[in-house]
C-alpha cells in the first residue's frame, strides 16, 4: 500500500515541476496563440544562471534570484525581438522560429559550458532527508512542491485581486475590448512573458538543484511534455493546465512501472494525451479562461 502512496507522491513531484513549466507556456498561448517552444530554453537558461551565480557567489538563493530576473528579461526580449514582428503571420511561423531558437540556445549552452554539464559546488539539499507518513523525501522535493503551491496561489490572487492582474485576464479573454477599456495590451504582454519565464527559470533551477546537474539538453525533454500538458489542459486554460500537470505526473509515475515494458516514458505521456483528445477534443479544461 505504501508503495502506491510512494508512487503517487512521486507523481505529485513530477506534476509540480511540470506545472511550473507549463504555466508560462499556457499564459503565452492564451494571450498570443503561439506555441512558445523556446520556453524550454528559458527553463534551461534559468538552471544555468542559477548554478553559475550560486557557484560564483556561494549563495544558492542568489543563484535562484538571479535566474528568475535574468529569465524574465530573456522572455521579454524573445517576445519583442522574435514574436512581436511575427504576429501578423500564420501561427506556424512563430512556432518554427521558436523551435529554431530552442535548438540554437541548447547548442549554445553546450558550446559555452561544455557537453558534460555543470554541478553545484556546494549542494547538501538532495541528501537532506525528511521522514513523514512513512515516506522519505529530500529538501529539494519539498521545495518544489512548496514553490509550486506558493507561486500558483500568488498568481491566482494576482489575476483576481489586483488591477493589473484583472487587466491581464481581460486581455487574454478579449484583447480589443480590454484595450477599449484602457488596458495597455503591450504592457500586459511583457508582463505575461516576464512572469511565465521567471516561473520556468525557477523550475529549471529547482530541477538543477534536485539532480545536482545542469546539462545543455535538459530543456528538450520537458518541452514536449509541457506542450502535451497545455493541450491536455485546454490551450490557454490555467486551471486545466494545473490539473493536466498533476494528472500527467501521476500517469507517468504509474505508467512507467506497469506499462514500461511495452512503451517508453514519452510514448506513455503522449498516448495518454491522444486518448484524452479522442474523447474530449478540447482537452480537460473545458471553456477557456485566463
Amino acid at each position, binding site marked *: 500500500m505504501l508503495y502506491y502512496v510512494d508512487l503517487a507522491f512521486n507523481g505529485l513531484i513530477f506534476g509540480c515541476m511540470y506545472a511550473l513549466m507549463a504555466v508560462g507556456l499556457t499564459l503565452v498561448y492564451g494571450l498570443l496563440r503561439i506555441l512558445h517552444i523556446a520556453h524550454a530554453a528559458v527553463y534551461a537558461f534559468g538552471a544555468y544562471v542559477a548554478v553559475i551565480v550560486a557557484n560564483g557567489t556561494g549563495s544558492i538563493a542568489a543563484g535562484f534570484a538571479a535566474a528568475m530576473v535574468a529569465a524574465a528579461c530573456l522572455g521579454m526580449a524573445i517576445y519583442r525581438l*522574435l514574436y512581436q514582428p511575427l504576429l501578423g503571420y500564420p501561427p506556424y511561423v512563430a512556432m*518554427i522560429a521558436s523551435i529554431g*531558437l530552442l535548438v*540554437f540556445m541548447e*547548442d549554445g549552452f553546450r558550446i559555452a559550458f561544455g557537453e558534460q554539464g555543470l554541478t553545484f559546488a556546494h549542494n547538501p539539499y538532495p541528501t537532506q532527508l525528511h521522514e513523514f507518513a512513512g515516506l522519505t523525501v529530500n529538501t529539494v522535493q519539498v521545495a518544489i512542491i512548496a514553490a509550486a503551491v506558493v507561486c500558483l496561489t500568488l498568481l491566482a490572487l494576482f489575476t483576481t485581486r489586483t488591477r493589473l492582474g484583472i487587466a491581464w485576464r481581460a486581455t487574454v479573454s478579449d484583447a480589443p475590448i480590454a484595450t477599449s477599456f484602457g488596458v495597455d495590451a503591450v504592457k500586459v504582454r511583457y508582463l505575461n512573458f516576464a512572469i511565465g519565464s521567471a516561473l520556468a527559470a525557477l523550475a529549471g533551477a529547482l530541477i538543477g538543484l534536485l539532480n545536482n546537474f545542469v546539462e545543455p539538453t535538459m530543456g528538450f525533454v520537458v518541452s514536449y511534455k509541457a506542450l*502535451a500538458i497545455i493541450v491536455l489542459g485546454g490551450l490557454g486554460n490555467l486551471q486545466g493546465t494545473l490539473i493536466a500537470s498533476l494528472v500527467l505526473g501521476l500517469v507517468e509515475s504509474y505508467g512507467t512501472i506497469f506499462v514500461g515494458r511495452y*512503451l517508453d516514458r514519452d*510514448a506513455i505521456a*503522449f498516448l495518454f494525451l*491522444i486518448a484524452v483528445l479522442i474523447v474530449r477534443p478540447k482537452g480537460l479544461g473545458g471553456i477557456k479562461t485566463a
Partner: protein
Amino acid sequence: MSAYATSVLAIIGINVMLAVSLNMITGFCGQFSLGHAAFYGAGAYAAAFAAGAGAPAPLALLAGVIIAGLLGIVVGFASLRLRDDFLAVTTIGVSFLFVGFVRKQPWLGAEMGMSKIPSSGLGSEGNALLILACALLTIALSLYVNRSWMGFGFRAVGDDEDTARTVGISVGAYKLVAFTLGTAIAGLAGGLYAYFTQFIVPDTFGFIVSVTLMAMVVIGGTGSTIGVAIAAVALTLLPEVVRFTNDYRLLIFGGLLVLVMRFAPGGLAGLGRAVLVKARGK
C-alpha cells in the same frame, strides 16, 4: 561513382521525397504535421520486416507504402476532430509514440534495430538511382496535384476550412486524401531507405527528423513544391559542404530557422516571388 557520392545522392533523394510529401499535407492542405518521421519509419520497418520474411523487393516496398498509408489514414481521422495547435501537438505525439513503441518490440529488433536487411538486388548505385527516380516522380506528382482539382480542394481546405465547407467542398475527404497520399510516399521513402542502408534503428525516425522535415518545408516555402525540393537538397548538403563548421551545426541550423522565419517567412519560394515581382516592376 564513389560510395560517398552514392550515399549522399541517396539521402538527398529520400529527403526530397519526405519533404515534398509533407508539403502536400501541410503546405497544400494546411494540416500541420510534426510527425512525418513516424510514417517514414513505419514504411522502413514494414519493408524491412517483409524483406526479412522473404518478400521480394517490390512487395516489401509495397508493404511499406501500405502500412504508412494506413497509419496516415488513422492520423488523418484525428485531424478531422482536432484543429491547428491541437493537431500539431498530436502529431508530435505520434512521432514519439512510434519510436517509443518500436524501441520496445523485440520482433522489430528493439534497440538494436533491424540489421542484415536483404539486398534489393540492385546494388548500391542501383538503389541510389531508384531513389532519385522516385524523388523526381514525387516532385512531378506534387506539381500535378497542385494544378489539379485535388490541389484546388486542398488549398481551399488549407486556406479556410469553414468557408470551404459552405461552398460544398468535402473537407473531411480532402484531409484524409492529403494525409494518405503524403504518408504513403513517406512510407515508400522509408522502404527505399531500408534497402539502401540494410540496417535501421528506431532513432533514425525520431522527433528531431520530423522537425527537420518541417524545417525543409518552411524554409523552402510552405506550399511550393520546387521551393521545398530545393530546401531539402540544400539542407541535406549543407552539413556535408561545411564540415569545418560541424561543431556549430545545430547552432547554425537553429539560427537559420530563426532568421528565415523572422525575415523571410515565405521561405525560398517567397523570396523567389519577391525577386520576380521586383524584376517585373523595373
